């Protein structure tokens, strides 16, 4: 009975950490995309008052369901895979989880683009800087997952 409780607690901890990380990556990834889009718009000549930016960010946070699904599925595959790798090998969590997070976003973006006529589905990832920043967000998300799991009692 005591062993079952321990297992259940570990699973609950993992699920909670997963939810926190997915929410974090979705929010950070969306905000970063939004800033890249606004920067491109500014480069095209738009004058965007600072007061408008919160409205744009809020709109994107509440309207990017495809991105949310992509992060959910991507991390749903990547993080358990990373956990298994760490459990059954001597690989370090400190880089396996970030790598898993970055890979999840890279694959997710690639799948969206491949199914979108080879074009860029998420406009904030059109350039290399936008794309790599998404990978960075994924890596931070993976690292956060490892940290949250380790910190929570």
């Amino acid at each position, binding site marked *: 009975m005591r062993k079952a409780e321990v297992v259940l607690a570990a699973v609950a901890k993992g699920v909670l950490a997963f939810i926190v990380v997915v929410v974090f990556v979705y929010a950070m990834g969306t905000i970063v995309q939004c800033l890249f889009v606004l920067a491109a*718009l500014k480069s095209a000549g738009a004058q965007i008052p600072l007061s408008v930016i919160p409205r744009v960010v809020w709109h*994107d946070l509440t309207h990017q369901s495809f991105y949310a699904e992509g992060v959910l599925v991507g991390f749903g595959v990547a993080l358990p895979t990373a956990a298994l790798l760490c459990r059954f090998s001597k690989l370090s969590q400190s880089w396996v989880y970030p790598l898993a997070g970055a890979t999840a976003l890279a694959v997710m973006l690639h799948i969206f683009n491949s199914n979108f006529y080879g*074009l860029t589905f*998420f406009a904030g990832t059109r350039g290399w800087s936008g794309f790599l920043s998404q990978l960075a967000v994924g890596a931070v998300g993976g690292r956060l997952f490892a940290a949250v799991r380790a910190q929570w009692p």
Partner: protein
Amino acid sequence: MAVIAKTAPRLWLILVTLMGIVLSPTVSNAAVNYRVTTLLRGLDHPYAMVFLPDGDILVTEKRGTLQRLHNDVLSPVPVAGVEEILASASLFADGKYCGLLDIALHPRFQENQFIYLSLTAGSRAANAVRVIRARYVNDRLQEAVEVFTAFPTKDTANHPGGRLAFIKDGTLLITIGDGFDYREKAQDLHSMLGKIVRVKEDGQIPQDNPFMDEKGGRSAIWSYGHRHPQGILYDAQADTVYEHEHGPRGGDELNVIAAGKNYGWPLETYGVDYSGAYVSPFNEYRGTEQPLFQWTPSLAPSGITQCHGCQWPEWEGDLFISMLAGKRVVRVRVRQGAVTEREDLFEAVGERVRDVRFSPQGALYLILDDSRGRLLKVVPGAGISR
């Protein structure tokens, strides 16, 4: 048994009638005054059509063929010479978006037999809209010359543009899309992406173009801030240029085009990105033109024509816009610079409509966008009053 014997003939009649309705190539609408008939099946992604003065029809297919119909019947072979001309023009046809696009007759076609074709030239990695002019003699294209090629090239196949319209002074307007991934270029007067350009019939730049003082070929630009203009029409009676373009998710636009004006993309739009994110937080932006009308959600406008002396007197002067995603034609009435009436037509056809034109006799023709595309003819329905 007596009941069965009595009702069987009636049931049979109903069954035969239903089968007739299902199998008939004609779609009639009793509520409105038109009858739609399929003239031709099996066109390979037809894109545009034009009527010759004798009533014959030329239809472009994206893969690079030009079909001719005489008395509404397809000629056994495509127009000759086209394959060679398009090969030398470096046709890039990807089977989806790029290939042979629009066709237009020179305003004095009966004198010079000049036909203008637009196409995407180059390769997937580097393509651009190109316009060629050729002489149409004895069902053959010959003496082709390049009139215009947009620059810079783009590495996306989407949003080529490529629609053509001659205006009052005999110059040619050519629409060029933004290439999808390069939307900010629509505001860049160093690039032709997202522009409408104006050239003379031989490709020279008219001296009165609005950006004539600019260097580097930008002098061809007539208007800018366009996304994916797939329809352009010159209304000679009102001396007005109409253009429509795809928005992203929402925000398809019908515009009245004037020289030197900025039509806003992507600074302002009524649509959002396909991901749901903002393209721009602005529906209106100072210094840019508002559309005459905008469609949200998108119907994907693909072609445009106008009724002048058509077979429906009640539609005189109205615009007819074909829709891909909307699978219909929308009739738009414009009076005093505003849309005063709209009507959805031919929804029963239920397929993507690629282009729409009136014949010299005033019948309406539609081409449907498919690998086995159809050509439809619409005439007033006999005995059906509107």
